[in-house]
């Protein structure tokens, strides 16, 4: 696993030779307050997750890519177009679903989505047609003639999604798309996001603090903390990797045991006094672990398979990030 300071590249290309989003030492400050600090990376996935605690800079990163805030230093590219110089071209390729309530007052839903489509460059007749289609797609077909002021929170979220996709963008930014949705509505939203992702017609950047949402939809994740990139993880590769993750509960002194496991070529991390996490490499077997434990006078009280979940990655990133600036991470 690369650390935050190194350039991050996913060899699994989704679109030609260049990434969807390329961050080139991107920094953003508001006055004297640095918000994003030297972000570097190249993202190619169909769906990219953006995670981080509150105040990490997720929304600021999205706003910078959208051209709302100018970078203080460095730059970024979207589909090989520089955000500093080609902002108008980039905006014609992207759609944005804001986190906060955003709509235009005294408009019906179809009128609102049509208006947004026209602003994106569609002629009026095409805009009207696609507005109807987008609203049926998101499930607001029956309510499309109602005023937006009368919509529930869940319906407003769907209306926001409809205006983000009506003009058929290549890259869609979704900022907390499941905010305020009840479980069935959340499921529907996640399904729609996956459908858009699987259609192959658009890439998605999903910013959320809900790890389940990101885990269900995204292939790559970026974790930000205090404006820095602390983790890049390719979930697709993680899922495909044929690794055995073991969780051990032990008794005894672990020092010698850990050294022996590392000598075997396996990665090992002590999570608490008597708990260990081991990633078995190819060629190593569980009986080897038992043998080493016996030789080191360590009792194995429990042994379970445990694949690193996104929650583990996230919590470790937060822990490592708070200890040192660029701590290396467990997952690869």
């Amino acid at each position, binding site marked *: 696993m690369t650390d935050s300071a190194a350039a991050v590249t996913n060899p699994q290309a989704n679109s030609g030779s260049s990434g969807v989003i390329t961050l080139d030492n991107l920094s953003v400050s508001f006055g004297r307050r640095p918000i994003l600090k030297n972000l570097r990376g190249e993202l190619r996935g169909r769906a990219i997750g953006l995670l981080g605690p509150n105040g990490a800079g997720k929304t600021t990163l999205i706003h910078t890519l959208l051209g709302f805030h100018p970078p203080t230093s460095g730059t970024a590219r979207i589909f090989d177009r520089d955000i500093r110089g080609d902002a108008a071209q980039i905006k*014609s390729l992207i759609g944005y679903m804001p986190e906060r309530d*955003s709509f235009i007052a005294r408009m019906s839903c179809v009128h609102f989505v049509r208006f947004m489509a026209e602003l994106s460059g569609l*002629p009026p007749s095409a805009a009207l047609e696609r507005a109807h289609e987008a609203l049926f797609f998101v499930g607001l077909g029956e309510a499309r003639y109602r005023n937006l002021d009368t919509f529930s929170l869940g319906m407003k979220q769907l209306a926001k999604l409809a205006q983000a996709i009506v003009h*058929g963008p290549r890259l869609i930014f979704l900022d907390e798309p499941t905010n305020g949705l009840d479980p069935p509505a959340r499921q529907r939203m996640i399904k729609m996001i996956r459908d858009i992702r699987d259609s192959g017609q658009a890439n998605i950047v999903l910013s959320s603090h809900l790890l389940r949402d990101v885990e269900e939809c995204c292939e790559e994740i970026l974790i930000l903390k205090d404006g820095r990139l602390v983790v890049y993880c390719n979930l697709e590769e993680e899922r495909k990797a044929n690794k055995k993750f073991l969780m051990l509960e032990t008794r005894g002194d672990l020092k010698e045991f850990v050294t022996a496991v590392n000598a075997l070529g396996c990665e090992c991390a002590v999570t608490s006094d008597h708990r260990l996490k081991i990633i078995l490499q190819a060629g190593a077997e569980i009986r080897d672990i038992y043998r080493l434990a016996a030789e080191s006078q360590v009792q194995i009280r429990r042994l379970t398979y445990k694949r690193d979940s996104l929650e583990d990655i996230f919590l470790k990133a937060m822990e490592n990030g708070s200890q040192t600036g660029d701590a290396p991470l467990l997952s690869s």
Partner: protein
Amino acid sequence: MAVLERAYKQYQGPQSPLWSRFLIIPRHAYRDVFRSKIFTAFFALSFIWPLVCAILIYLHHNVEAIAVLKINVRALLPIDAGFFETYVIVQGTIGFFLAVLVGPQQVSRDLTNNALPLYLCRPFTRSEYVVGKMSIVVILLSAITWVPGLILFLLQSYLEGWSWFADNIWMASAIFLGSLVWIVLLALMSQAISAWVKWRLAARAALLGVFFIPTIFAQVINEIFQTRWGHIFDLRALIGNVWSGLFGTFVRQVGEDREFRNGRIVATVFRTEPPLWASWFMLFLICAFCLWLLSRKVKAYEVVK
């Protein structure tokens, strides 16, 4: 994306021209504006004065009508610069009240409902947004000011003949320019107030206040300092000077005050209006200030420092 398929597809069709996208805003705004019956009625009534002027112009050239009326309409109401200046003043006043009705809610609603990110995440700049919002007022006021004004001018030219048209073409430019200056000023002021005052009624009151309160202030200055330079703070006086300047009726010296002592004049103070360039300059400053106010507020997100 066909309804039957219900799958996400990119749009591959033609795009609308970039230069005309700002017109999307007024086109959609008028659906809401003309929903108000009061406004629609007021807008319809604002064409009464142009209609009256057209009738007067017609009467000037209808011999039978003059004979029936038994009055010399030509002497009573000459169709000259003063006639068209009066027209511009009356329609400009009506336009002010139209701007008060329509202008103040345009930007404030978008700010209240956090709609600006939706505009600005698209290939749509802040300038286009401001011009689009201004166009709502500009188009409406143009429809009741310089457009019928030029039609009246052309009607008069048609009835008088080509030589009258050639001699008085400058009046057409005065009608157009005088109306345009007022329209742009009202559009900028209403949008700037709308951007800073969120509540519609308060914004309307602010627009009325900006127009009337400086008038009182200007009068106070004029009385205290025995001058007319207080008018540089008075929007009514500024635009009035600009209009009279365009129509050639501007007079700098408008009065004099004499001080008597023992039955003799010991001092004379001439009251003069500020020069025309001062009125133009003040209007320009006001427009620039309104643009600056708009640039401060029209942003996708406001950064709290």
